[in-house]
């Protein structure tokens, strides 16, 4: 055993959900954290480090459980890790305000034959509520180093570090060997009898009062709508300012590089490929940071469990969890943070289902596409004399996406949930004041995950897309095909993307599109709003000049029929295509990252492409 001074000690942190386990982990390791993978599962492996008295300690934060028998994927990670034995000490986080329930799981840990350390969290709350724990007595009876702490208030942390360092002998307790659940509770009851003095005060008096309002049939939903409204405002409007600043910064970098470096393919790759690609990754950080800031506050305050209580019955018919509501609402701004936030759904299948349907919610990147096409084909008329046709169409597109998200979830859940044990019991934790320090550490972790994991894929694909749209095949003096930079071949339609778009024409013709739209569909894989920019390039008008673009597109005549290209049928078909199609490499990269593999993003891409193609086909043929 590597327990000598200086050697690295590995400590597994275990505890019930809501025991403050992650707050303690963040308290102990601070900024020294690293996120990795467990083989074959979607749960993140979060490790942290600290040093105390020359002893280096590695902490492994395991998913919260109520017992060693695993049911969900998260719980399986914990039991597999404990069975695997790749650690020196188990640190158990107990709840001082409810020792009996929270020590049940603890008593199962003796069987792993490792030194145990018991941290009794929420000491401050227990003190206030008149719960008196005789720690010395408890420590003797349990044969375990026991420390009373408050992870949030930073009390008892040094003593806990010392206890972890000193935990070298295997903890034993014959009383808890091979007991049935009820016998285990009985043994625990007897043991606690001499160590814990409880007052008759109810710990939940404040919580019960708050719940009278927060899950009230009217006030409860109003408050929930208010929370959703704030989140929506934050990621839709507030995040716009830092996002614009990031975009601006990268534009400056781009022009600085193009003007200061000698012209050539390398400068072009750097200025037009890598820099915008990096910008395209970093631009998501404000939304991710803001969303996770709010989610961590909701989670830690205990409100998230109330969201499940309020919406469980509504979401159940669609196979979704109450917690799916927040990702789905966030997706109206952007699917990237939304998909990452589905992590708060503890049931793996419900999480997967939420991730799968999230891209169907119309995000803000679709808005420029919708606006342009609607302006182009929807007449300026009023339905029944007062409903604006254009506004109505926009509303219809949002509703269409939302409707299909629900339908898809309902159908898919039938396949997913066949053999699942469907019991649903969840703790409604006490309301607690969240800690900002903890929220900031969570933001940092999520941003790191996005930039270093999903970011790699996004950057790689955007460089490929850049090559495709800025280089094209050309013939040199010897008649051989060479790759030429697009500035020399003048027109995007001569680029590889252009060629692909043109060869695409027979496939997209049944939808009412020509090759110009084909090119724009291909380039907009980078991000949907690129559709508008590409069309502007093709019609050689500046991107800012949308009325100019609109007029050029209106004048476009189909050479075969002599009729305008952008008819109502083509326009509606294109709008519906963009409602459904997974036209976003960042979404694909994030789904890959969150499901830990290419299987689900590929299934999702195929499904959404088929859905987009067939509905656009139906719409076009119905209208023309």
């Amino acid at each position, binding site marked *: 055993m590597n327990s000598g001074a200086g050697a690295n000690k590995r400590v597994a942190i275990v505890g019930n959900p809501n025991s403050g386990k992650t707050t303690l982990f963040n308290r102990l390791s601070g900024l020294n954290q690293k996120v990795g993978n467990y083989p074959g599962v979607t749960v993140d492996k979060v490790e942290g480090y600290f040093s105390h008295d020359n002893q280096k300690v590695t902490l492994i934060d395991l998913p919260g459980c*109520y*017992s060693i*028998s695993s*049911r969900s994927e998260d719980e399986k990670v914990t039991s597999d890790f404990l069975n695997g034995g790749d650690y020196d000490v188990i640190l158990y986080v107990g709840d001082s*305000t*409810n020792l*009996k*329930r929270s020590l*049940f*799981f603890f008593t199962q840990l003796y069987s792993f034959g490792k030194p145990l350390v018991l941290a009794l969290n929420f000491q401050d709350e227990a003190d206030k509520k008149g719960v008196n724990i005789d720690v010395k007595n408890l420590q003797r009876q349990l044969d375990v180093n026991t420390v009373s702490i408050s992870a949030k208030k930073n009390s008892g942390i040094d003593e806990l570090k010392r206890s972890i360092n000193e935990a070298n002998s295997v903890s034993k307790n014959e009383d808890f060997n091979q007991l049935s*659940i*009820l016998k285990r*509770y009985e043994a625990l009851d007897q043991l606690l009898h001499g160590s814990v003095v409880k007052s008759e005060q109810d*710990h*939940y008096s404040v*919580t*019960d009062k708050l*719940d009278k309002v927060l*899950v*009230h*049939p009217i006030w*409860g*939903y109003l408050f929930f709508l208010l929370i959703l409204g704030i989140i929506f405002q934050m990621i839709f409007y507030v995040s716009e300012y830092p996002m614009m600043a990031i975009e601006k910064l990268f534009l400056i970098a781009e022009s600085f590089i193009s003007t200061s470096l000698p012209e050539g393919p390398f400068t072009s790759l750097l200025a037009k490929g890598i820099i915008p690609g990096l910008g395209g990754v970093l631009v998501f950080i404000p939304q991710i940071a803001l969303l996770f800031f709010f989610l961590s506050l909701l989670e830690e305050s205990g409100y998230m*469990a109330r969201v*499940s*209580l*309020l919406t*469980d*019955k*509504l979401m159940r018919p669609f196979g979704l969890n109450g917690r799916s509501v927040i990702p789905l609402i966030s997706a109206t701004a952007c699917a990237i943070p939304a998909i990452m936030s589905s992590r708060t759904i503890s049931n793996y299948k419900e999480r997967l289902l939420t991730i799968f349907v999230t891209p169907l919610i119309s995000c803000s990147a679709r808005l420029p596409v919708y606006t342009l096409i609607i302006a182009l084909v929807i007449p300026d008329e009023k339905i029944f004399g007062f409903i604006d046709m254009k506004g109505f169409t926009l509303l219809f597109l949002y509703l269409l996406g939302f409707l299909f998200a629900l339908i898809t979830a309902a159908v898919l859940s039938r396949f997913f949930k066949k053999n699942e*044990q469907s*019991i*649903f*019991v*969840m*703790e*409604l*934790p006490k309301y607690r004041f969240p800690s900002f320090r903890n929220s900031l550490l969570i933001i940092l972790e999520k941003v790191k995950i996005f930039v270093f994991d999903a970011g790699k894929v996004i950057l790689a694909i955007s460089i490929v897309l850049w090559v495709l749209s800025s280089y094209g095949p050309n013939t040199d003096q010897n008649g051989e095909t060479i790759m030429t930079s697009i500035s020399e071949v003048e027109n995007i339609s001569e680029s590889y993307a252009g060629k692909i778009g043109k060869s695409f024409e027979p496939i997209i013709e049944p939808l009412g599109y020509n090759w110009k739209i084909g090119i724009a569909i291909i380039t907009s894989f980078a991000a949907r709003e690129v559709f508008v920019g590409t069309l502007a390039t093709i019609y050689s008008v500046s991107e800012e000049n949308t009325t100019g673009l609109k007029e050029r597109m209106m004048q476009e005549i189909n050479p075969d029929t002599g009729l305008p290209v952008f008819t109502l049928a083509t326009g509606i078909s294109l709008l519906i295509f963009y409602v459904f199609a997974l036209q976003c490499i960042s979404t694909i990269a994030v789904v890959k990252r969150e499901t830990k593999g290419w299987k689900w993003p590929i299934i999702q891409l195929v499904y959404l492409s088929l859905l987009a193609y067939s509905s656009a086909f139906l719409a076009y043929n119905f209208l023309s």
Partner: protein
Amino acid sequence: MLKLSDLKDGQSAVLLHFDESENKNVFQEMGIIPGELITKLFEAPLGDPIVIKASDTRLMIRKKDAALIFVATK
């Protein structure tokens, strides 16, 4: 026989036994154990799930699951 799902808001009862053995452990490990006094606190605004008080915690549980738990009022 009285089930947990039959209790009125604010009504307390002693847990007797569970209907199905497979789910029994899930309940028990979360502190819903025979002999324990359980209080139904209130229902979610849409009528389901229900919120109960058991071994000094608050738990929410769907009505169909609560129907697997048999109780006796004092």
